[in-house]
């Protein structure tokens, strides 16, 4: 799957999650999970599970993106998530 398609998938999944949250934020590569979409940690789990279901792959290794030196990163953009997913899918292919 090329990067554009992965990005599209990320936007679609995230848009689905926040559909009824009453937010004004645009969904795009620079949109940030916490600052723009008010994500909490349980929402991140939902997002990862949704990716796993859509891609029919488990253990995508998201902790490598979410955790640095044993701590949660403060925020992530949808572009970063798409790039990470694309890289994981490329390695796994």
């Amino acid at each position, binding site marked *: 799957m090329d990067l554009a398609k992965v990005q599209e998938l990320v936007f679609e999944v995230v848009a689905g999650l926040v559909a009824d949250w009453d937010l004004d934020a645009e969904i795009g590569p620079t949109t940030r999970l916490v600052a723009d979409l*008010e994500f*909490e*940690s*349980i929402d991140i*789990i939902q997002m990862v*599970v949704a990716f796993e279901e859509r891609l029919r792959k*488990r*253990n995508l290794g998201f902790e490598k993106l979410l955790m640095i030196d*044993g701590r949660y990163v403060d925020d992530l953009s949808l572009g970063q998530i798409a790039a990470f997913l694309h890289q994981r899918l490329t390695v796994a292919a």
Partner: protein
Amino acid sequence: MPFAELPAVRINYLRMPAEDEAPAPEDVVMIHGLATNMAFWYGGLAPVLTRFARVTIYDLRGHGHSSMPPTGYSPVEMAEDLRLLLDHLGIDSAHMVAHSFGGMVAVIFALSHPERVKSLVLADVRLRPVQPRLRLRQWRFAPRWHEALAEAGVTLDDDHPDSGILLLTELARLTVERPDDARRLNETFFGAEARLGTRTARRWLNMLETTSAFGEITGPGPDFHRDDLKRLTQPILALVGEHSIAKTSARVLKRECANCVLRVIPGAGHFFPLSRRQLFARLCLRFYAARAGWRPELGTRH
């Protein structure tokens, strides 16, 4: 995410498969504390354990994405939710990991269904029958808290027998009304990783306002007696923060349970599973290898 439709509640859960599912891996079930949800484990111990085990995390009733029935919040009823969830998932027995109030649920479950609990990791668990009152006034950091809360305009009855829950509730209220003040307080006392999210805070307040949770969580008890702890013969790892108010419970566990190891986490408070993730994971893995008849490959991939 999947739900288990139990008779009185819908429980949100996540099963995280073991990296190697053959032969049949051990099951680990993780139980979070009050005013949080399954995410408490997701970024910490849970993914570490999936290298060796199948891990189930779930939201207690009224928390996370589980439903919020009007009643049924005593630890005894939540232990029954756990039994029904395990039945639903076909898990006959499992290693249990629990933090804070989740530890009450785990201990009651282990006393009622000993054959279903292979081991217990109890992280900073206050056992109510052992410590029926938790007055923050008696805590050595109380004066510092008072000062910081007063600066934020919050008054707390720190002589209330459940002042820990009152504090959690005040922090939740502050998170909703004045998130910057709440963030500052949380980070000062619990560390950045233990902060409440706005929606989680709202849900906690909503649960206290619209259900019988407060009364059922805080009383009337006792749910078991201190002597009952002798019946816990499984390997137990009792972990407690050096600065935690739950130390009395951990010491009693060590005294009453023949197979209990007690470890004090230096310099830590109540939330060390978040603030000291790596140490917490290491201690759990060592415990499993040494005491629980389960030998994860220490040092190879962790």
